[in-house]
């Protein structure tokens, strides 16, 4: 087999092209969203410039829910197929989900300081529940590092599913908690904002989603490359 064909085939297996495409899409969308949010979107009459953090804060929060759902589905697929690739997806998604959740807490905390004059508001259910979500998924890595081999993958998949149970609890806590100070942007009646804001919010949401997919693809390429290299070195040793 000519070497160029082999290179092409291995690139396809590793999926480098998909990572590159998603990287470009994410870069373009994040740039457009940043320009739109800071320069084009109208300023909120009540909160002023600090309200612009909402476009990223809520977008990251919603995408982090999607990320943990992806990790959960990948966990279920791992338990059904025992294919290590699903474990790769699950662990990578949780890693990125943790990063996004921490960003939700940081942006929420900045917003809380500007709106309510304090960095942390225990009465704000979303901020508190994201803290719980971070603690739950931090335990995923503690569990993962304390078991080996097949059990590590199995237990990680089970925990990814059990951890995801906390995500709807996080989501609904905004609605059920009695002492309630967080602005509810999306109600069952639809979005609670004008169209000129909604369009930039949707672009921010798409940018964060693309960023997640790009990060996932890049990390998966790294994992696949590592595995392919290990297989190659084993083949070379045996020949």
């Amino acid at each position, binding site marked *: 087999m000519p070497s160029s064909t082999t290179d092409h085939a291995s690139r396809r297996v590793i999926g480098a092209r998909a990572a590159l495409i998603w990287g470009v899409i994410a870069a373009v969308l994040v740039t457009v969203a940043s320009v739109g949010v800071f320069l084009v979107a109208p300023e909120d009459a009540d909160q002023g410039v600090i309200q612009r953090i909402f476009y990223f804060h809520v977008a990251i929060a919603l995408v982090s829910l999607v990320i943990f759902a992806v990790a959960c589905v990948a966990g279920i697929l791992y338990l059904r197929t025992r294919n290590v690739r699903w474990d790769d997806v699950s662990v990578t998604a949780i890693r990125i989900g943790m990063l996004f959740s921490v960003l939700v807490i940081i942006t929420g905390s900045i917003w809380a300081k500007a709106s309510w004059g304090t960095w942390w508001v225990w009465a704000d259910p979303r901020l508190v529940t994201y803290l719980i979500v971070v603690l739950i998924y931090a335990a995923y890595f503690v*569990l993962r590092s304390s078991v080996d081999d097949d*059990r590590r993958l*199995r237990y990680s998949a089970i925990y990814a599913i*059990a951890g995801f149970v906390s995500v*709807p609890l996080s989501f609904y*806590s905004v609605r059920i908690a009695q002492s309630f100070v967080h602005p509810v942007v999306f109600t069952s009646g639809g979005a609670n904002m004008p169209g000129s804001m909604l369009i930039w919010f949707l672009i921010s949401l798409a940018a964060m989603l693309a960023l997640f997919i790009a990060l996932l693809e890049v990390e998966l390429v790294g994992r696949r490359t590592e595995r392919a290299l290990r297989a190659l070195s084993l083949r070379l040793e045996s020949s």
Partner: protein
Amino acid sequence: MSMAVNRPRWTRQLAGLIRKDLRLELRTKETVMAMVLFSIVTLTIMQFGFGTRDDDLTRFTGGLMWVTLAFTAVLGVGRSYVAEREQRVLDGILASPVPRVVLLAAKAIAIVIYMAITELVVIPVVGIFFVKGPYWDSIGWIALVALIANVCIALSGTLFSGLALFTRARDLILPVLFLPALVPVVIAGAGATHAVVGGPHDMSEYRGYCLFLVGYAILFLLVCIATYDAVFDD
């Protein structure tokens, strides 16, 4: 064919497993005694933790009770598989044709019973120690929310203790896995207790928290049924 005929029904398997756990506990009284003592010690520490000698801590009753019960649950759940593992009984159970879900149910029921016995002491002690207003007329409502919360604790606890069982430093891993999952139970348990203690009962708030706990229990039940086979799939 004869093996299929001789296999006991799941109800008998469940009854047998629960009987084993309870008999073991009745002989040693290790777990429940430790849980009760631990909870009283924790409640005593809580009083000093506030930095006040105020006798009336009515407004903190729910929090005091449910934080104590959460830590006690970690202690009890942590013990739930230890005897089986130390005496290699677990290998025998796993080798026998007992569905994993029956094993899960037996452990969960045993934990509910241990927690209920502990609460028989904790709920009155909280009233005596901390509440100077009306409390005893609410005891039935507190017992009801405790019962629902026990099911939540038992289901999530059984799953996490199964995961922690074969890990390195399992005594350390279990609280790290289990306590964050217990936070919603503490929030709802404390909220429901506050709704019925120290003043007029707010039954709509109480009902809301109870429904939340029922939802939590259903979600964890589904997760347990879906994944428990994989926990012991060796």
